[in-house]
Protein backbone atom coordinates (compact mmCIF):
# COMPACT_ATOMS: atom_id res chain seq x y z
CA UNK A 1 0.00 0.00 0.00
CA UNK A 2 1.29 3.43 -0.83
CA UNK A 3 0.51 6.20 1.64
CA UNK A 4 -0.86 8.20 -1.31
CA UNK A 5 -3.77 5.78 -1.58
CA UNK A 6 -5.01 6.57 1.91
CA UNK A 7 -6.62 9.95 1.01
CA UNK A 8 -8.69 8.20 -1.69
CA UNK A 9 -9.76 5.47 0.69
CA UNK A 10 -10.56 8.08 3.34
CA UNK A 11 -12.58 10.15 0.88
CA UNK A 12 -14.75 7.14 0.07
CA UNK A 13 -15.61 6.33 3.69
CA UNK A 14 -18.74 8.47 3.65
CA UNK A 15 -19.77 7.95 0.06
CA UNK A 16 -22.95 10.01 0.28
CA UNK A 17 -21.26 12.98 1.93
CA UNK A 18 -18.30 12.88 -0.44
CA UNK A 19 -20.62 12.36 -3.41
CA UNK A 20 -22.75 15.35 -2.48
CA UNK A 21 -19.69 17.52 -1.94
CA UNK A 22 -18.30 16.48 -5.33
CA UNK A 23 -21.70 17.19 -6.87
CA UNK A 24 -21.67 20.66 -5.30
CA UNK A 25 -18.20 21.37 -6.66
CA UNK A 26 -19.24 20.02 -10.07
CA UNK A 27 -22.21 22.38 -10.21
CA UNK A 28 -20.07 25.27 -8.99
CA UNK A 29 -17.34 24.63 -11.56
CA UNK A 30 -19.96 24.24 -14.29
CA UNK A 31 -21.65 27.50 -13.30
CA UNK A 32 -18.29 29.25 -12.93
CA UNK A 33 -17.16 28.00 -16.35
CA UNK A 34 -20.40 29.05 -18.04
CA UNK A 35 -20.42 32.49 -16.42
CA UNK A 36 -16.78 33.06 -17.39
CA UNK A 37 -17.66 31.99 -20.93
CA UNK A 38 -20.57 34.44 -20.96
CA UNK A 39 -18.19 37.22 -19.93
CA UNK A 40 -15.73 36.18 -22.63
CA UNK A 41 -18.51 35.94 -25.20
CA UNK A 42 -19.47 39.47 -24.25
CA UNK A 43 -15.99 40.60 -25.14
CA UNK A 44 -15.67 38.32 -28.19
CA UNK A 45 -16.24 41.21 -30.61
CA UNK A 46 -13.42 43.08 -28.93
CA UNK A 47 -11.14 40.04 -28.92
CA UNK A 48 -11.93 39.28 -32.56
CA UNK A 49 -11.27 42.85 -33.68
CA UNK A 50 -8.40 43.40 -36.09
CA UNK A 51 -5.61 45.83 -35.31
CA UNK A 52 -5.51 46.86 -38.97
CA UNK A 53 -9.13 48.02 -39.17
CA UNK A 54 -10.60 51.35 -38.17
CA UNK A 55 -14.27 52.27 -37.93
CA UNK A 56 -15.48 55.75 -38.84
CA UNK A 57 -18.95 56.88 -37.80
CA UNK A 58 -20.85 60.09 -37.31
CA UNK A 59 -19.32 61.96 -34.38
CA UNK A 60 -22.75 62.76 -32.92
CA UNK A 61 -24.05 59.20 -32.85
CA UNK A 62 -23.92 55.95 -34.73
CA UNK A 63 -27.53 56.41 -35.80
CA UNK A 64 -26.67 59.46 -37.87
CA UNK A 65 -25.34 58.63 -41.35
CA UNK A 66 -22.31 59.89 -43.24
CA UNK A 67 -22.18 60.95 -46.90
CA UNK A 68 -20.92 58.38 -49.39
CA UNK A 69 -18.66 61.08 -50.78
CA UNK A 70 -16.34 60.75 -47.78
CA UNK A 71 -15.05 57.47 -49.18
CA UNK A 72 -12.69 58.94 -51.73
CA UNK A 73 -11.32 61.50 -49.27
CA UNK A 74 -10.65 58.80 -46.70
CA UNK A 75 -8.95 56.60 -49.29
CA UNK A 76 -6.40 59.35 -49.92
CA UNK A 77 -5.25 59.56 -46.30
CA UNK A 78 -1.71 58.31 -45.93
CA UNK A 79 -1.54 54.81 -44.45
CA UNK A 80 -5.03 53.78 -45.65
CA UNK A 81 -5.01 50.64 -47.79
CA UNK A 82 -8.73 50.18 -48.43
CA UNK A 83 -12.08 51.63 -47.49
CA UNK A 84 -15.41 49.89 -47.25
CA UNK A 85 -18.74 51.04 -45.91
CA UNK A 86 -22.03 49.73 -44.75
CA UNK A 87 -25.23 50.29 -42.95
CA UNK A 88 -26.95 48.54 -40.08
CA UNK A 89 -30.05 47.22 -41.79
CA UNK A 90 -31.97 45.81 -38.82
CA UNK A 91 -34.17 43.55 -40.95
CA UNK A 92 -36.46 40.94 -39.42
CA UNK A 93 -36.60 37.40 -40.75
CA UNK A 94 -40.23 36.16 -40.45
CA UNK A 95 -40.53 37.19 -36.79
CA UNK A 96 -38.57 39.36 -34.40
CA UNK A 97 -37.62 36.29 -32.37
CA UNK A 98 -35.36 35.25 -35.27
CA UNK A 99 -32.91 38.05 -34.57
CA UNK A 100 -29.50 38.05 -36.21
CA UNK A 101 -27.25 41.00 -37.11
CA UNK A 102 -27.67 42.04 -40.75
CA UNK A 103 -25.81 44.71 -42.69
CA UNK A 104 -25.93 46.27 -46.13
CA UNK A 105 -22.29 46.58 -47.20
CA UNK A 106 -20.08 47.35 -50.15
CA UNK A 107 -19.53 43.72 -51.02
CA UNK A 108 -16.09 43.49 -52.59
CA UNK A 109 -14.16 45.76 -50.24
CA UNK A 110 -16.00 44.42 -47.19
CA UNK A 111 -14.89 40.86 -47.89
CA UNK A 112 -11.35 42.10 -48.52
CA UNK A 113 -11.30 43.78 -45.15
CA UNK A 114 -12.65 40.68 -43.40
CA UNK A 115 -10.36 37.83 -44.47
CA UNK A 116 -11.54 35.91 -41.38
CA UNK A 117 -14.89 35.41 -43.14
CA UNK A 118 -13.85 32.39 -45.17
CA UNK A 119 -15.94 31.97 -48.30
CA UNK A 120 -15.32 29.55 -51.20
CA UNK A 121 -14.10 31.47 -54.24
CA UNK A 122 -17.14 30.51 -56.34
CA UNK A 123 -19.53 31.75 -53.68
CA UNK A 124 -17.52 34.95 -53.26
CA UNK A 125 -17.74 35.72 -56.97
CA UNK A 126 -21.44 34.84 -57.11
CA UNK A 127 -22.10 37.19 -54.20
CA UNK A 128 -20.09 40.09 -55.58
CA UNK A 129 -21.66 39.85 -59.04
CA UNK A 130 -25.32 39.58 -58.02
CA UNK A 131 -26.82 42.76 -56.59
CA UNK A 132 -29.59 40.84 -54.81
CA UNK A 133 -27.21 38.30 -53.34
CA UNK A 134 -26.52 37.84 -49.66
CA UNK A 135 -24.04 35.92 -47.50
CA UNK A 136 -24.81 34.31 -44.17
CA UNK A 137 -22.55 33.03 -41.44
CA UNK A 138 -22.45 29.27 -40.93
CA UNK A 139 -24.28 29.40 -37.60
CA UNK A 140 -27.14 31.55 -38.84
CA UNK A 141 -27.51 29.39 -41.98
CA UNK A 142 -27.61 26.23 -39.85
CA UNK A 143 -30.08 27.86 -37.46
CA UNK A 144 -32.63 28.44 -40.23
CA UNK A 145 -31.66 25.52 -42.46
CA UNK A 146 -30.66 27.78 -45.35
CA UNK A 147 -28.94 26.40 -48.40
CA UNK A 148 -27.18 28.16 -51.26
CA UNK A 149 -29.79 29.45 -53.69
CA UNK A 150 -32.51 29.92 -51.08
CA UNK A 151 -34.51 33.13 -51.22
CA UNK A 152 -34.51 34.98 -47.93
CA UNK A 153 -36.96 37.78 -47.28
CA UNK A 154 -36.11 40.39 -44.66
CA UNK A 155 -38.73 42.82 -43.40
CA UNK A 156 -37.14 46.23 -43.20
CA UNK A 157 -37.53 48.14 -39.95
CA UNK A 158 -35.34 51.15 -40.78
CA UNK A 159 -35.90 50.80 -44.50
CA UNK A 160 -39.53 49.70 -44.96
CA UNK A 161 -40.53 46.91 -47.27
CA UNK A 162 -39.88 43.25 -47.92
CA UNK A 163 -36.33 42.76 -49.15
CA UNK A 164 -35.86 39.66 -51.22
CA UNK A 165 -32.34 38.29 -51.19
CA UNK A 166 -30.76 35.17 -52.65
CA UNK A 167 -28.26 33.26 -50.54
CA UNK A 168 -25.09 33.00 -52.59
CA UNK A 169 -22.57 32.20 -49.90
CA UNK A 170 -22.15 30.77 -46.42
CA UNK A 171 -18.97 31.82 -44.66
CA UNK A 172 -17.07 30.07 -41.92
CA UNK A 173 -14.85 31.73 -39.37
CA UNK A 174 -11.09 31.50 -39.85
CA UNK A 175 -10.67 31.43 -36.07
CA UNK A 176 -12.76 30.10 -33.22
CA UNK A 177 -13.37 33.69 -32.16
CA UNK A 178 -14.83 34.73 -35.52
CA UNK A 179 -18.50 35.67 -35.43
CA UNK A 180 -20.42 33.23 -37.65
CA UNK A 181 -23.83 34.76 -37.08
CA UNK A 182 -23.58 37.74 -39.40
CA UNK A 183 -25.63 38.31 -42.51
CA UNK A 184 -24.76 40.83 -45.19
CA UNK A 185 -25.85 41.89 -48.62
CA UNK A 186 -25.28 44.71 -51.13
CA UNK A 187 -25.55 48.31 -49.95
CA UNK A 188 -26.19 49.27 -53.60
CA UNK A 189 -29.38 47.21 -53.59
CA UNK A 190 -30.70 49.15 -50.59
CA UNK A 191 -29.45 52.51 -51.83
CA UNK A 192 -31.10 52.01 -55.22
CA UNK A 193 -34.45 51.49 -53.59
CA UNK A 194 -34.00 54.35 -51.11
CA UNK A 195 -33.21 56.69 -53.95
CA UNK A 196 -36.75 56.10 -55.20
CA UNK A 197 -38.65 56.00 -51.88
CA UNK A 198 -36.61 58.28 -49.57
CA UNK A 199 -34.32 60.38 -51.78
CA UNK A 200 -33.05 62.40 -48.82
CA UNK A 201 -31.57 59.24 -47.28
CA UNK A 202 -29.83 58.09 -50.44
CA UNK A 203 -26.06 57.93 -50.82
CA UNK A 204 -25.59 57.87 -47.08
CA UNK A 205 -23.77 55.18 -45.13
CA UNK A 206 -23.85 54.16 -41.48
CA UNK A 207 -20.14 53.59 -41.08
CA UNK A 208 -16.87 53.33 -42.92
CA UNK A 209 -14.42 50.50 -42.43
CA UNK A 210 -10.83 51.52 -43.06
CA UNK A 211 -7.93 49.18 -43.64
CA UNK A 212 -4.56 50.56 -42.45
CA UNK A 213 -1.15 49.42 -43.58
CA UNK A 214 0.54 49.59 -40.17
CA UNK A 215 -1.38 48.99 -36.92
CA UNK A 216 1.18 51.22 -35.20
CA UNK A 217 -0.10 54.17 -37.27
CA UNK A 218 -3.78 53.52 -36.54
CA UNK A 219 -4.06 56.52 -34.21
CA UNK A 220 -2.42 58.91 -36.69
CA UNK A 221 -4.69 57.67 -39.48
CA UNK A 222 -7.79 58.06 -37.27
CA UNK A 223 -6.80 61.64 -36.38
CA UNK A 224 -6.09 62.41 -40.03
CA UNK A 225 -9.47 61.07 -41.15
CA UNK A 226 -11.41 63.00 -38.49
CA UNK A 227 -9.50 66.21 -39.28
CA UNK A 228 -10.67 65.93 -42.91
CA UNK A 229 -14.26 66.44 -41.85
CA UNK A 230 -13.78 68.86 -39.00
CA UNK A 231 -16.39 71.61 -39.03
CA UNK A 232 -18.39 69.83 -41.72
CA UNK A 233 -22.09 69.04 -41.39
CA UNK A 234 -21.22 65.43 -40.53
CA UNK A 235 -18.11 65.34 -38.41
CA UNK A 236 -16.61 61.90 -37.96
CA UNK A 237 -15.32 59.85 -35.11
CA UNK A 238 -12.72 57.30 -36.14
CA UNK A 239 -11.43 54.66 -33.78
CA UNK A 240 -9.90 51.23 -33.92
CA UNK A 241 -12.32 48.37 -34.44
CA UNK A 242 -11.41 47.20 -30.96
CA UNK A 243 -12.30 50.54 -29.39
CA UNK A 244 -15.50 50.62 -31.44
CA UNK A 245 -16.54 47.17 -30.17
CA UNK A 246 -15.48 48.06 -26.65
CA UNK A 247 -17.79 51.07 -26.67
CA UNK A 248 -20.74 48.67 -27.02
CA UNK A 249 -19.47 46.44 -24.23
CA UNK A 250 -18.91 49.43 -21.96
CA UNK A 251 -22.62 50.22 -22.14
CA UNK A 252 -23.33 46.90 -20.45
CA UNK A 253 -20.26 46.81 -18.22
CA UNK A 254 -22.31 46.79 -15.02
CA UNK A 255 -24.01 43.54 -16.09
CA UNK A 256 -20.65 41.97 -16.92
CA UNK A 257 -19.28 43.07 -13.55
CA UNK A 258 -22.24 41.45 -11.78
CA UNK A 259 -21.77 38.22 -13.73
CA UNK A 260 -18.09 38.20 -12.81
CA UNK A 261 -18.89 38.84 -9.15
CA UNK A 262 -21.47 36.05 -9.10
CA UNK A 263 -18.99 33.61 -10.62
CA UNK A 264 -16.55 34.27 -7.78
CA UNK A 265 -19.28 34.18 -5.13
CA UNK A 266 -20.18 30.68 -6.34
CA UNK A 267 -16.59 29.58 -5.79
CA UNK A 268 -16.58 31.15 -2.33
CA UNK A 269 -19.80 29.33 -1.39
CA UNK A 270 -18.51 25.96 -2.53
CA UNK A 271 -15.28 26.64 -0.66
CA UNK A 272 -17.32 27.02 2.53
CA UNK A 273 -19.25 23.81 1.79
CA UNK A 274 -16.05 21.85 1.14
CA UNK A 275 -14.41 23.32 4.23
CA UNK A 276 -17.38 22.13 6.26
CA UNK A 277 -17.02 18.62 4.84
CA UNK A 278 -13.31 18.55 5.58
CA UNK A 279 -13.83 19.95 9.08
CA UNK A 280 -16.32 17.15 9.83
CA UNK A 281 -13.92 14.62 8.35
CA UNK A 282 -10.96 15.79 10.40
CA UNK A 283 -13.03 15.97 13.58
CA UNK A 284 -14.19 12.38 13.11
CA UNK A 285 -10.66 11.15 12.42
CA UNK A 286 -8.75 13.05 15.03
CA UNK A 287 -8.28 9.79 16.97
CA UNK A 288 -6.91 8.05 13.89
CA UNK A 289 -4.49 10.87 13.26
CA UNK A 290 -3.33 10.50 16.87
CA UNK A 291 -2.83 6.77 16.29
CA UNK A 292 -0.82 7.48 13.15
CA UNK A 293 1.29 9.97 15.07
CA UNK A 294 1.87 7.31 17.70
CA UNK A 295 3.11 5.01 14.95
CA UNK A 296 5.63 7.69 14.00
CA UNK A 297 3.87 9.67 11.28
CA UNK A 298 4.90 13.32 11.34
CA UNK A 299 2.92 16.49 10.96
CA UNK A 300 3.70 16.81 7.25
CA UNK A 301 2.42 13.34 6.49
CA UNK A 302 -0.76 13.90 8.50
CA UNK A 303 -1.31 17.25 6.77
CA UNK A 304 -0.68 15.61 3.40
CA UNK A 305 -3.45 13.10 4.14
CA UNK A 306 -5.96 15.87 4.91
CA UNK A 307 -4.91 18.03 1.96
CA UNK A 308 -4.81 14.99 -0.32
CA UNK A 309 -8.37 14.03 0.55
CA UNK A 310 -9.60 17.59 0.12
CA UNK A 311 -7.83 17.98 -3.21
CA UNK A 312 -9.12 14.61 -4.40
CA UNK A 313 -12.69 15.76 -3.72
CA UNK A 314 -12.27 19.23 -5.23
CA UNK A 315 -10.35 18.09 -8.31
CA UNK A 316 -12.79 15.23 -8.98
CA UNK A 317 -15.64 17.74 -8.87
CA UNK A 318 -13.60 20.05 -11.08
CA UNK A 319 -12.90 17.32 -13.67
CA UNK A 320 -16.58 16.39 -13.90
CA UNK A 321 -17.55 20.06 -13.99
CA UNK A 322 -15.13 20.76 -16.84
CA UNK A 323 -16.33 17.70 -18.74
CA UNK A 324 -19.91 18.95 -18.43
CA UNK A 325 -19.01 22.54 -19.30
CA UNK A 326 -18.47 21.71 -22.98
CA UNK A 327 -21.89 20.18 -23.75
CA UNK A 328 -23.56 22.77 -21.51
CA UNK A 329 -21.74 25.60 -23.31
CA UNK A 330 -22.66 24.13 -26.70
CA UNK A 331 -26.31 24.00 -25.71
CA UNK A 332 -26.21 27.47 -24.17
CA UNK A 333 -24.36 28.84 -27.19
CA UNK A 334 -26.99 27.46 -29.55
CA UNK A 335 -29.80 28.89 -27.45
CA UNK A 336 -28.17 32.32 -27.13
CA UNK A 337 -26.39 32.38 -30.49
CA UNK A 338 -28.18 35.51 -31.68
CA UNK A 339 -26.94 37.55 -28.71
CA UNK A 340 -23.66 35.84 -27.93
CA UNK A 341 -22.41 34.75 -31.38
CA UNK A 342 -19.04 33.46 -30.20
CA UNK A 343 -19.59 31.16 -27.24
CA UNK A 344 -16.52 29.00 -26.89
CA UNK A 345 -15.05 27.74 -23.63
CA UNK A 346 -11.63 29.35 -23.58
CA UNK A 347 -8.54 27.55 -22.38
CA UNK A 348 -8.06 30.32 -19.81
CA UNK A 349 -11.48 29.38 -18.37
CA UNK A 350 -10.31 25.81 -17.88
CA UNK A 351 -7.18 27.06 -16.15
CA UNK A 352 -9.34 29.23 -13.91
CA UNK A 353 -11.58 26.22 -13.16
CA UNK A 354 -8.56 24.18 -12.13
CA UNK A 355 -7.09 27.07 -10.13
CA UNK A 356 -10.44 27.58 -8.37
CA UNK A 357 -10.65 23.86 -7.54
CA UNK A 358 -7.09 23.92 -6.19
CA UNK A 359 -7.84 26.97 -4.05
CA UNK A 360 -11.06 25.37 -2.79
CA UNK A 361 -9.24 22.13 -1.95
CA UNK A 362 -6.33 23.84 -0.21
CA UNK A 363 -8.33 26.44 1.71
CA UNK A 364 -10.95 23.88 2.78
CA UNK A 365 -8.25 21.62 4.19
CA UNK A 366 -6.14 24.30 5.87
CA UNK A 367 -7.91 24.47 9.22
CA UNK A 368 -8.69 20.73 9.52
CA UNK A 369 -5.06 19.95 8.65
CA UNK A 370 -3.83 22.40 11.26
CA UNK A 371 -6.06 20.75 13.86
CA UNK A 372 -4.93 17.27 12.88
CA UNK A 373 -1.28 18.26 13.01
CA UNK A 374 -1.41 20.14 16.28
CA UNK A 375 -3.62 17.82 18.31
CA UNK A 376 -1.68 16.22 21.13
CA UNK A 377 -1.49 12.45 20.76
CA UNK A 378 -2.81 11.84 24.25
CA UNK A 379 -5.76 14.18 23.62
CA UNK A 380 -6.47 12.54 20.27
CA UNK A 381 -6.38 9.05 21.74
CA UNK A 382 -8.87 10.08 24.40
CA UNK A 383 -11.43 10.69 21.59
CA UNK A 384 -11.44 6.97 20.83
CA UNK A 385 -13.51 4.45 22.67
Amino acid at each position, binding site marked *: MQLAKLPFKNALRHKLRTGLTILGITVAILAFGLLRTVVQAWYSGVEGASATRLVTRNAISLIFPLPLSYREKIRQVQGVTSVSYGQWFGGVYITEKNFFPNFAVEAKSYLELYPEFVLPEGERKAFVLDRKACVAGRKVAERFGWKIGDTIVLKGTIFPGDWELVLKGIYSGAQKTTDETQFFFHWDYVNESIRKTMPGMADMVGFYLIGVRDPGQATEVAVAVDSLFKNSLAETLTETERAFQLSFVTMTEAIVAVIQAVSFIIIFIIMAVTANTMAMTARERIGEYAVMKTL*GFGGRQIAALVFGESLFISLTGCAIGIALTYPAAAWFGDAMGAFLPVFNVARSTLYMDIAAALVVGLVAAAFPAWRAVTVKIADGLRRIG
Partner: protein
Amino acid sequence: MANNKPPIVVIRNLSKSYTRGIQVVRVLEDISLDIADGEFLALMGPSGSGKSTLLNLVAGIDTADSGRVTVGGVDISGLTETGLARWRALHVGFIFQFYNLIPVLSAFENVELPLLLTGLSRKERHEHVGAALGIVNLGDRMDHYPSELSGGQQQRVAIARALVTDPTILVADEPTGDLDRVSAEDILGLMTRLNCEFGKTIVMVTHDPRAADKAHIVRHLEKGVLDATGKAPL
Protein backbone atom coordinates in the same frame (compact mmCIF):
# COMPACT_ATOMS: atom_id res chain seq x y z
CA MET B 1 11.00 -14.57 35.16
CA ALA B 2 12.99 -11.54 36.26
CA ASN B 3 16.31 -11.07 34.51
CA ASN B 4 19.65 -9.49 35.28
CA LYS B 5 20.13 -7.73 31.96
CA PRO B 6 20.95 -4.01 32.00
CA PRO B 7 17.96 -1.71 31.99
CA ILE B 8 16.64 -0.75 28.57
CA VAL B 9 14.33 1.88 30.03
CA VAL B 10 15.69 4.25 32.64
CA ILE B 11 13.30 6.73 34.23
CA ARG B 12 14.65 9.30 36.62
CA ASN B 13 12.76 11.85 38.73
CA LEU B 14 9.89 12.07 36.29
CA SER B 15 7.10 14.53 37.10
CA LYS B 16 4.07 15.52 35.11
CA SER B 17 1.14 17.79 35.85
CA TYR B 18 -1.89 19.05 33.98
CA THR B 19 -3.65 22.36 34.32
CA ARG B 20 -7.43 22.27 34.48
CA GLY B 21 -8.66 25.83 34.57
CA ILE B 22 -6.71 27.40 37.41
CA GLN B 23 -6.09 24.07 39.11
CA VAL B 24 -2.79 22.25 38.65
CA VAL B 25 -3.21 18.46 38.86
CA ARG B 26 -0.01 16.58 39.61
CA VAL B 27 -0.26 13.28 37.77
CA LEU B 28 3.21 11.87 38.33
CA GLU B 29 5.58 12.82 41.10
CA ASP B 30 9.28 12.12 41.04
CA ILE B 31 9.05 8.70 39.42
CA SER B 32 12.21 6.67 39.02
CA LEU B 33 12.14 3.23 37.49
CA ASP B 34 14.40 0.85 35.59
CA ILE B 35 13.03 -1.72 33.16
CA ALA B 36 15.43 -4.44 32.14
CA ASP B 37 15.83 -5.61 28.56
CA GLY B 38 13.40 -8.48 27.91
CA GLU B 39 11.29 -7.58 30.93
CA PHE B 40 7.49 -7.89 31.04
CA LEU B 41 6.29 -5.18 33.42
CA ALA B 42 2.71 -4.52 34.42
CA LEU B 43 1.68 -1.13 35.73
CA MET B 44 -1.43 -1.21 37.90
CA GLY B 45 -3.34 1.32 39.86
CA PRO B 46 -6.74 2.94 40.16
CA SER B 47 -8.15 5.26 37.49
CA GLY B 48 -6.38 8.60 37.49
CA SER B 49 -3.31 7.20 39.23
CA GLY B 50 -1.11 8.25 36.30
CA LYS B 51 -0.25 4.84 34.85
CA SER B 52 -1.33 5.69 31.27
CA THR B 53 0.52 9.00 31.53
CA LEU B 54 3.65 7.13 32.61
CA LEU B 55 3.20 4.72 29.71
CA ASN B 56 2.81 7.64 27.28
CA LEU B 57 6.01 9.21 28.59
CA VAL B 58 7.92 5.95 28.15
CA ALA B 59 6.50 5.63 24.62
CA GLY B 60 7.46 9.19 23.77
CA ILE B 61 3.95 10.36 22.97
CA ASP B 62 3.86 12.86 25.80
CA THR B 63 6.50 15.02 27.44
CA ALA B 64 7.31 15.37 31.11
CA ASP B 65 7.56 18.58 33.12
CA SER B 66 10.81 17.41 34.62
CA GLY B 67 12.95 14.31 34.83
CA ARG B 68 14.44 12.06 32.24
CA VAL B 69 13.39 9.00 30.22
CA THR B 70 16.10 7.01 28.49
CA VAL B 71 15.15 4.14 26.21
CA GLY B 72 17.81 1.98 24.63
CA GLY B 73 20.41 4.58 25.55
CA VAL B 74 18.51 7.47 23.94
CA ASP B 75 17.37 10.30 26.20
CA ILE B 76 13.98 10.86 24.64
CA SER B 77 13.21 13.77 26.98
CA GLY B 78 15.53 15.90 24.89
CA LEU B 79 14.06 15.04 21.49
CA THR B 80 11.99 17.45 19.44
CA GLU B 81 8.50 16.48 18.32
CA THR B 82 9.82 15.45 14.90
CA GLY B 83 12.69 13.58 16.51
CA LEU B 84 10.27 11.82 18.81
CA ALA B 85 8.07 10.80 15.88
CA ARG B 86 11.08 9.28 14.10
CA TRP B 87 12.18 7.57 17.30
CA ARG B 88 8.72 6.11 17.93
CA ALA B 89 8.56 4.77 14.37
CA LEU B 90 11.70 2.71 14.96
CA HIS B 91 11.71 1.88 18.64
CA VAL B 92 8.19 1.66 20.03
CA GLY B 93 5.32 -0.69 19.30
CA PHE B 94 2.07 0.55 20.79
CA ILE B 95 -0.90 -1.70 21.59
CA PHE B 96 -4.11 0.18 22.37
CA GLN B 97 -7.15 -0.84 24.35
CA PHE B 98 -9.47 -0.28 21.39
CA TYR B 99 -7.05 -1.72 18.78
CA ASN B 100 -7.22 1.54 16.78
CA LEU B 101 -6.90 -0.04 13.37
CA ILE B 102 -7.60 2.14 10.34
CA PRO B 103 -11.00 0.88 9.16
CA VAL B 104 -10.41 1.51 5.43
CA LEU B 105 -7.22 -0.55 5.42
CA SER B 106 -7.03 -4.34 5.35
CA ALA B 107 -5.24 -6.27 8.09
CA PHE B 108 -2.21 -6.44 5.82
CA GLU B 109 -2.27 -2.70 5.10
CA ASN B 110 -2.74 -1.83 8.77
CA VAL B 111 0.33 -3.86 9.70
CA GLU B 112 2.24 -2.39 6.77
CA LEU B 113 1.47 1.18 7.87
CA PRO B 114 4.48 1.70 10.21
CA LEU B 115 6.79 0.20 7.58
CA LEU B 116 5.88 2.99 5.15
CA LEU B 117 8.04 5.21 7.34
CA THR B 118 11.06 2.98 6.84
CA GLY B 119 13.22 2.69 3.79
CA LEU B 120 12.16 -0.90 3.14
CA SER B 121 11.31 -1.98 -0.36
CA ARG B 122 7.83 -3.21 -1.24
CA LYS B 123 9.05 -6.79 -1.25
CA GLU B 124 10.76 -6.42 2.13
CA ARG B 125 7.64 -4.82 3.56
CA HIS B 126 5.56 -7.75 2.34
CA GLU B 127 7.94 -10.19 3.97
CA HIS B 128 7.87 -8.33 7.29
CA VAL B 129 4.08 -8.02 7.30
CA GLY B 130 3.68 -11.69 6.39
CA ALA B 131 5.99 -12.68 9.25
CA ALA B 132 4.23 -10.42 11.79
CA LEU B 133 0.79 -11.69 10.81
CA GLY B 134 2.17 -15.23 10.96
CA ILE B 135 3.33 -14.69 14.54
CA VAL B 136 -0.17 -13.61 15.59
CA ASN B 137 -1.73 -16.49 13.58
CA LEU B 138 -3.59 -14.27 11.16
CA GLY B 139 -1.74 -15.14 7.99
CA ASP B 140 -5.00 -16.27 6.43
CA ARG B 141 -6.87 -13.05 7.28
CA MET B 142 -4.54 -10.50 5.82
CA ASP B 143 -7.03 -9.28 3.23
CA HIS B 144 -9.80 -8.84 5.78
CA TYR B 145 -10.87 -5.41 6.92
CA PRO B 146 -11.19 -4.62 10.64
CA SER B 147 -14.97 -4.74 10.41
CA GLU B 148 -14.68 -8.34 9.19
CA LEU B 149 -12.62 -9.40 12.22
CA SER B 150 -13.57 -10.14 15.83
CA GLY B 151 -12.26 -7.98 18.68
CA GLY B 152 -9.59 -10.54 19.54
CA GLN B 153 -8.50 -10.79 15.91
CA GLN B 154 -8.36 -7.01 15.61
CA GLN B 155 -6.17 -6.84 18.69
CA ARG B 156 -3.91 -9.48 17.19
CA VAL B 157 -3.61 -7.37 14.04
CA ALA B 158 -2.77 -4.41 16.29
CA ILE B 159 -0.09 -6.49 17.99
CA ALA B 160 1.31 -7.46 14.58
CA ARG B 161 1.38 -3.76 13.68
CA ALA B 162 3.24 -3.00 16.93
CA LEU B 163 5.65 -5.82 16.26
CA VAL B 164 6.36 -5.37 12.58
CA THR B 165 9.17 -2.84 12.93
CA ASP B 166 10.89 -5.02 15.52
CA PRO B 167 10.79 -2.21 18.12
CA THR B 168 12.94 -1.85 21.21
CA ILE B 169 9.91 -1.96 23.51
CA LEU B 170 6.26 -2.84 23.26
CA VAL B 171 3.89 -0.67 25.28
CA ALA B 172 0.33 -1.81 25.82
CA ASP B 173 -2.44 0.27 27.35
CA GLU B 174 -5.15 -2.03 28.68
CA PRO B 175 -4.70 -4.48 25.79
CA THR B 176 -7.44 -6.78 27.10
CA GLY B 177 -9.75 -4.02 28.35
CA ASP B 178 -12.17 -4.34 25.46
CA LEU B 179 -12.09 -8.11 25.06
CA ASP B 180 -14.08 -11.04 26.39
CA ARG B 181 -12.33 -13.48 28.67
CA VAL B 182 -11.37 -16.01 25.99
CA SER B 183 -10.00 -13.37 23.64
CA ALA B 184 -8.20 -11.70 26.53
CA GLU B 185 -6.50 -14.98 27.43
CA ASP B 186 -5.53 -15.41 23.80
CA ILE B 187 -3.97 -11.93 23.64
CA LEU B 188 -2.15 -12.38 26.95
CA GLY B 189 -0.81 -15.73 25.74
CA LEU B 190 0.44 -14.02 22.62
CA MET B 191 2.13 -11.26 24.60
CA THR B 192 3.77 -13.81 26.88
CA ARG B 193 5.02 -15.61 23.79
CA LEU B 194 6.43 -12.38 22.37
CA ASN B 195 8.26 -11.80 25.63
CA CYS B 196 9.53 -15.34 26.14
CA GLU B 197 10.21 -16.47 22.57
CA PHE B 198 11.19 -13.20 20.95
CA GLY B 199 12.65 -11.46 24.02
CA LYS B 200 10.44 -8.40 23.61
CA THR B 201 10.45 -5.88 26.45
CA ILE B 202 6.83 -5.18 27.33
CA VAL B 203 5.36 -2.44 29.49
CA MET B 204 1.66 -2.98 30.04
CA VAL B 205 -0.90 -0.88 31.84
CA THR B 206 -3.81 -2.93 33.12
CA HIS B 207 -6.61 -3.09 35.63
CA ASP B 208 -6.98 -6.77 35.10
CA PRO B 209 -5.23 -8.96 37.74
CA ARG B 210 -5.25 -11.88 35.29
CA ALA B 211 -3.31 -9.77 32.82
CA ALA B 212 -0.90 -8.61 35.49
CA ASP B 213 -0.41 -12.23 36.43
CA LYS B 214 1.39 -12.79 33.12
CA ALA B 215 3.97 -10.07 33.86
CA HIS B 216 7.28 -10.70 35.59
CA ILE B 217 7.01 -7.55 37.64
CA VAL B 218 3.98 -5.58 38.72
CA ARG B 219 4.35 -1.98 39.86
CA HIS B 220 1.54 -0.03 41.41
CA LEU B 221 0.88 3.65 41.01
CA GLU B 222 -1.19 5.53 43.54
CA LYS B 223 -1.89 9.24 43.05
CA GLY B 224 1.14 9.60 40.81
CA VAL B 225 3.55 7.88 43.14
CA LEU B 226 5.12 4.52 42.33
CA ASP B 227 5.23 1.85 45.02
CA ALA B 228 8.58 1.52 46.69
CA THR B 229 9.54 -1.82 45.23
CA GLY B 230 8.26 -4.12 42.55
CA LYS B 231 5.90 -6.81 43.66
CA ALA B 232 5.54 -10.28 42.37
CA PRO B 233 2.48 -10.86 40.22
CA LEU B 234 -0.79 -11.46 42.04
